[in-house]
């Protein structure tokens, strides 16, 4: 397999990497960049624990070839806060106790953040619909939905 030089912007920082054609973006993020907030869950696009934002939109890093991410802008959970300053939905997860084991949390927070950017005033139904692919096996959905709801414009 011919190796490829790629350049991706991760959390605002340009990273140059050499990857094999079958390297997955998830493994490059976790192992080469040591950003282990992005989780490996099912590996087949069912659970969304590996969610990252690509050009601001949620995608699943377990199904993306790293070489195909060349030139893209990627945000992982580590890149959401500005230093110690959390984005509103991160603070809301803390305030609502919307975290149990924490494994789904990076994907949940990133997907919620993308939803609020797309639709700043989502209803409960819209929140549940947008998050329907993110699995929480502690079944902490109620607190998660409440956390996101508290960030909706009408509740500010």
């Amino acid at each position: 397999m011919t190796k490829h030089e790629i350049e991706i912007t991760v959390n605002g920082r340009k990273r140059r990497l050499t990857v094999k054609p079958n390297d997955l973006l998830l493994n490059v993020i976790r192992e080469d960049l040591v950003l282990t907030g992005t989780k490996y869950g099912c590996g087949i696009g069912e659970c969304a624990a590996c969610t990252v934002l690509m050009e601001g939109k949620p995608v699943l890093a377990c199904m993306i070839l790293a070489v195909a991410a060349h030139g893209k802008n990627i945000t992982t959970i580590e890149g959401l806060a500005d230093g110690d300053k959390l984005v509103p939905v991160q603070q809301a997860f803390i305030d609502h106790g919307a975290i149990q084991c924490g494994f789904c949390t990076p994907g949940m927070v990133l997907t919620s953040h993308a939803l609020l950017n797309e639709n700043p005033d989502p209803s409960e139904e819209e929140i549940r619909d947008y998050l329907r692919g993110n699995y929480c096996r502690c079944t902490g959905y109620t607190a998660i939905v409440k956390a996101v709801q508290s960030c909706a414009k009408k509740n500010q």
Partner: protein
Amino acid sequence: MHVNTRIMPVEFEYLEPKTKAEALEMLAKYDNVKVLAGGTDLIVKLKTGADIKVDYMMNVKEIEELNYIKLEDNLVKIGAVTPLSTIENNEIINKYLPILSEAIKAMAAIAVRNMGTIGGNLCNSSPAGDTIPPLTVYDAKLILAGKQGTKEVSVEEFITGPGKNILAQDEMLVEVVVPAPKENTGAAFIKKTRVKADISKINTAVLMERVEDKCVNCRIAMGSVAAKVVRILPAEEAVRGQKVDLNLCQKAAQIVSDEIKPIDDNRSTAEYRKEIARVIVEDAMKIAWQRSGGEKIND
């Protein structure tokens, strides 16, 4: 067999054409090229050990000229690599092909729809593919391109069986062309799943064209009841030219249930599929009829 989905076990060379012409040249030049779009089906299949021969992986997602939605001469044209999430929110689609948008909104998770493309859903050719029944009843044509030129086929001609279609090794799907439905036409899409993000146990799309209180044209497509998405011609025939009422909807729905020969699999049973087909076709007909401007059909 133990499957490790942490890695991609298959080895291949990577190709990334930037134009359609470049992609067609690569398809003609190399053997065993697999076209990669969103990867939400192909990557999973390769990870889980599907028997797919791939020496070259050709990523078509960077071909900008195949990413568009436009209305031209009363035809809705969708580029093959247009992401599903772009289609579901597009004004032209919502106005002219609303059940395509509804079917996509009911698919998987937002992250999967951001990655997946309409061309990918068609070329994956699943009997449960949710874009297929709407495109079938809307009478969509698919444009297949090869180095020798292009050809136009219907969705029914394109898909031949589970995961199988007529694409030659050196061809690719480049565009989906859908005639804008006539005035007084209504359509509906219904799918049944265990939880919302699931692959369909069964799905249906119904399109009805109305003149006064009669349906002059009816198309009914069913997914997950055969080796591919199928139209139920005897049911369509029973509706055509008839005055539409509850009785007619129930009669057509019963014909669908009698005609289909579904199987038991890990998502549902043949028995359930035959029963629920009757229910969802009746419901879809009522919705389609009302959307065509017809009078609401009460039970």
